[in-house]
């Protein structure tokens, strides 16, 4: 071949063509697979919410196991008896909607199933001075209602998020945490059973009804987490910042629900 590949003009031409070809190839793949990926993420949200409610495929004390992905949709429909959306601004509830009202709304910021509400988007809305939509997923177990709320915050490297199930007195019934890029073996362990299970039974409110939250504490006062009245769970070794992130997102995001629970 007689192409002089050392010429500058050729090098630039090659680079341009390469970028165009690779760029369109990747764009094509991404858009072709997008529906599948979206669907997987949707099912995952349902699985996470069900997990926080205590509906999961866990066996023994080992790993976390979700309900089967194929059954998640049906289980979600039967177990989540009600979805509601609270519209809050400056710490006050200005509107309370049922899931259907929210999903059928013409408003572009609404119009989705409440469990698909993106907490990150809602946090941005507050920064823009708008109201924030807070979803709650309610399961009714023979009159014992459990409320699941999504939370989101910052870990060491990237976002962390979770779902916390509480009863009407804001006592934690179950929790699920996940993360985008925490260090495997350290911060990533917030996704382990032994960390999540510690939250069950912890209280968010003091006896006087003041919001205290739960701190991921390094004090080692209660390593087995038997004391459920100390507003603390035992921290993970080597994951201080991730643990602090978990405390912060619980305090910040769950506090927003306080007015609702005060009126129950």
């Amino acid at each position, binding site marked *: 071949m007689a192409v002089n*590949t050392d010429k500058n003009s050729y090098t630039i031409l090659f680079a341009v063509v390469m970028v165009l070809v690779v760029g369109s*190839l990747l764009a094509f793949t991404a858009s072709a697979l997008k529906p599948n990926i979206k669907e997987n993420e949707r099912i995952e949200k349902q699985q996470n919410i069900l997990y926080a409610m205590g509906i999961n495929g866990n066996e023994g004390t080992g790993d976390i196991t979700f309900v089967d992905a194929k059954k998640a949709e049906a289980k979600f429909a039967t177990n989540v008896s009600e979805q509601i959306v609270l519209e809050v601004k400056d710490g006050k509830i200005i509107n309370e909607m049922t899931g259907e009202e929210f999903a059928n709304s013409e408003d572009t910021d609404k119009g989705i199933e409440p469990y698909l509400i993106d907490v990150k988007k809602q946090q941005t809305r507050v920064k823009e001075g708008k109201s924030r939509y807070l979803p709650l997923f309610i399961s009714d177990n023979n009159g014992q209602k459990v409320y699941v709320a999504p939370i989101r915050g910052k870990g060491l490297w990237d976002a962390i998020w979770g779902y916390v199930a509480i009863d009407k007195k804001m006592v934690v019934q179950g929790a699920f945490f996940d993360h985008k*890029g925490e260090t495997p073996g350290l911060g990533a362990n917030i996704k382990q059973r032994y960390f999540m299970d510690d939250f069950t039974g912890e209280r968010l409110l003091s006896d006087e009804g003041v919001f205290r939250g739960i701190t991921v504490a390094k004090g080692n006062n209660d390593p087995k987490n038997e004391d459920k009245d100390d507003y603390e769970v035992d921290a993970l070794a080597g994951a201080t910042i991730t643990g602090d992130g978990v405390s912060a997102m619980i305090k910040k995001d769950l506090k927003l629900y306080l007015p609702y629970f005060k009126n129950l």
Partner: protein
Amino acid sequence: MGLLSKKDTKLITDPLADNNPITIQVLGICSALAITAELKASLVMGIAVLFVLGVGNVVISLLRNLIPSKIRIIVQLIVVASLVIIVDQVLKAFAFELSKTLSVFIGLIITNCIIMGRFEAFALGNGPWKSFLDGIGNALGYAVILIIVGFFRELLGSGTLFGIPVLGDPIEKTGVYSIGYENNGFMLMPPMALIIVGLIIWVQRSRNKDLIED
């Protein structure tokens, strides 16, 4: 052999043993340490690298007369990076659970020096078919070591293989645990992968004296 000539066969078999990318060339060590605590992760990483290296080698080889030498490293990087993104997207779409456990490591493929090493050393100077075989061979050689290391780490560290308990129940004290055996938590730490790789190198070199450097 009808399909493969003797030379072609060597391209696949050499990296499996006497020219293994991990134990002889000492490439790709970082991922060998990071993901071999479980056999399943080792296997999937092996398959992912097999795909990226096989296809990548062919792409580079087809372009070898067109790639300007001044920017060849960047071109190689782009090829690896786009293949990795495709693998990642496909896993997310069709094996979501798996992609969640692997997402950190999929990104690591880009930094796997075996891939850039084969592009640079082989694909830029050989035809597509040979390059494909070379890519498959090296990826298999990589996968074999990963699987051996993963097998021992998971077996001795957690007492399981592919997540299935094979040594009995450590809490109920059944199987070998009933005679006082304990899981070695140390095996789950990355340095133990290095020690196992070291042992493999030792065995390999004591069997084949030609590999010993002076």
